[in-house]
């Protein structure tokens, strides 16, 4: 009964999390071969290209923080979501909207109310790396908290897959001998790197 439950959970959890496994795997390959992408695209992140420029007519409450101002601008532009604020010139507010597919940079100039919206050129490796690094409950948006929950689920699933896999292996007596060889081989290689690197 326990064995059957473990097998089914192992499998259905893996099927459900297949997109996350793929994303983390492909992004790790991209990060491991950073040099290749640097040669392909050059140093630095992808460039931004202007998407829109307008006069922003909204207003802020007195003493509003930079974060509150950024949230108001994002909401009015229909681009609500996780963001960061770049250190910029005085009188300018530079918002980096962390959209996973199309990150945007929004520069608001207080003096004339001008708002320039720029979209980052899409690059597969940057997209994958951004998704890989996205985590935590520090943003104010529900969607980001939801994503952080899936990241936690994935972490728990990895540990569960490892432990339930060991259980299932031990139940198959015919595979024990070669299983021990495989496990010890991997462990020895890992220990070697622990000592030497």
């Amino acid at each position, binding site marked *: 009964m326990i064995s059957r439950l473990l097998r089914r959970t192992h499998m259905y959890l893996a099927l459900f999390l297949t997109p*996350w496994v793929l994303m983390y795997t492909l992004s790790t390959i991209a990060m491991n071969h950073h040099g290749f992408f640097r040669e392909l695209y050059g*140093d630095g992140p992808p460039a931004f290209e202007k998407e829109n420029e307008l006069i922003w007519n909204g207003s802020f409450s007195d003493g509003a923080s930079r974060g509150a101002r950024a949230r108001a601008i994002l909401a009015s532009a229909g681009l609500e979501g996780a963001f960061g604020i770049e250190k910029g010139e005085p009188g300018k507010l530079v918002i980096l909207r962390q959209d996973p597919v199309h990150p945007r940079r929004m520069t608001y100039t207080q003096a004339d109310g001008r708002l320039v919206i720029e979209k980052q050129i899409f690059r597969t490796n940057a997209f994958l790396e951004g998704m890989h690094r996205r985590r935590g409950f520090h943003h104010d948006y529900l969607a980001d908290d939801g994503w952080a929950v899936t990241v936690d689920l994935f972490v728990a699933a990895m*540990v569960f897959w*490892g432990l339930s*896999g060991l259980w299932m*292996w031990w139940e198959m007596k015919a595979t024990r001998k070669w299983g021990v060889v495989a496990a010890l081989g*991997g462990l020895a290689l890992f220990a070697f790197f622990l000592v030497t690197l």
Partner: protein
Amino acid sequence: MSWPQLNRRLHLYLALSLLPWFLVYGFSSLFFAHPSAGQRLYNDGVPTWTLRFERPFNDPAPDGGGGALKALGKKIMETCGLEGSFGAYRHSPTQVNVYVYTFWKSTEVKYFLDRKLLRVEDRRFRWDQFLTGMHARGGFDQDGFLDDLWAVLVDVVCLGFLTWITTGIIMWWQVKHTRMWGWAALGAGAGLFSAFLTWL
């Protein structure tokens, strides 16, 4: 050995071989997702960094990053008698930092350009940083053979994940009575992931 059996054995033995990497990536992700957990474990007043020594140094720093900055980092390491994997970055217009790391030990050299001074500091050992350091280690940017070999293994682990997906899907498909719920799980996961790409 039949094809389905070969598929099962590949799934199993590959997992057993790569289990240490699999568990390290799993447990370390916890500290990436919840960095405060690591902070709480070591909230004992012991300073993170300890000064090893300071010494004068005067070498111009390149304006850009990349290879020139890395060459300066290497020279700073030689001057300080440090060895190992390293990286260099410009912390501020008047400061270049070089970090030297192994799985067990991390050292940082701060080069204060205006004061013509090198300060070498050692980081205290922490298990959370040990795990996250191992998780983040990879790439073929270092000069050492073993660093390259570790990066090759990172690729092997990635290929392992792709193989587990493939062999896992084949195993699922062979158990006919699980197909319906399997499709439901696969579809729900793909749907949720796609939705996050729109919501985030």
